[in-house]
């Protein structure tokens, strides 16, 4: 089981409680599709992903970004059992969606950068450490059911 310090718990709850999921979700996903264009392979039916402007303006990308962040919220609310929380989603991503699990890490990195840009100096090294530890657990849990 993952051990969380009081600081880590408080930091995660604080960041996500202040976060606008409908802003950050689309920003993180669209950034991922721009910075790591090979991730677009999973979004063939999303329409125009031709360039950065198209991606950032694409409504299907935005909608999916919101879905992803709301999914992340489940881990925020269940920090002591993230593995179980994501067991089904992991199977879904592995067997149905067939997403390379390395993509979870890429999206997590983009989310970190979006949050850093929003929080500025408040995203200190310690806050980053806690945030990335949380995302590392999420990423690991999502990759858990791949066989």
């Amino acid at each position, binding site marked *: 089981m993952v051990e969380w310090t009081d600081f880590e718990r408080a930091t995660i709850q604080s960041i996500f409680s202040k976060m606008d999921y409908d802003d950050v979700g689309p920003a993180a996903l*669209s*950034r991922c599709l*721009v*910075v790591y264009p090979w991730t677009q392979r999973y979004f063939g039916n999303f329409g125009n992903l031709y360039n*950065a402007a198209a*991606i*950032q303006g694409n409504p299907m990308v935005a909608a999916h970004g919101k879905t992803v962040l709301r999914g992340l919220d489940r881990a925020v609310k269940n920090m002591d059992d993230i593995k179980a929380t994501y067991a089904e989603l992991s199977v879904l991503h592995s067997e149905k969606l067939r997403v390379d699990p390395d993509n979870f890490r890429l999206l997590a*990195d983009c989310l*970190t*950068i*979006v949050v*850093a*840009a*929003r*929080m*500025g*100096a408040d*995203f200190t*090294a*310690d806050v*980053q*450490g806690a945030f*990335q*530890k949380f995302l590392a657990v999420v990423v690991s849990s999502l990759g858990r059911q791949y066989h």
Partner: protein
Amino acid sequence: MQANHTCAVRPSRHSTSTHSTSATGYNMLTDHEKELIAKIWDKMIPVASEIGAECLLRMMTTFPGTKTYFAHLDIRPRSPHLRSHGKKIVLAIAECSKDISSMMVTLAPLQTLHAYKLRIDPCNFKLLCHCILVTLAAHMGDEFDPVAHAAMDKYLSAFAAVLAEKYR
């Protein structure tokens, strides 16, 4: 990534761009991206110690394994060692960004240093690169948009790859 005549050279993505005899053997970056990168690093030069120290501190906090390379330094926040070491790194990256096509030449001494003396496992380079991106985002906010992020990520990946070139 040396200029290698046997591998297919990717066509340049910019009609008026730098030719494909760039040091890295192919052109990952358009002229616009190179300008963007140089402009960002130019602004970091006057605050190199502050930015550099922050990048290192972020890396060592988020990825504690990287601390193993700094047993000889005081790596507490605000330590003068962190600032002077961070400054060296930022200045090297900034200097190189002024002429990205000559990366192989500019970085030759640092390649030797890292390969024969420092011997930092190259997997750590991407950890520092990520923390550099986070630092830039925290300082630049919205200005560090996806296009700037993509360009910078490509530049730092190329820098890291060139740095590791002489390892074996």
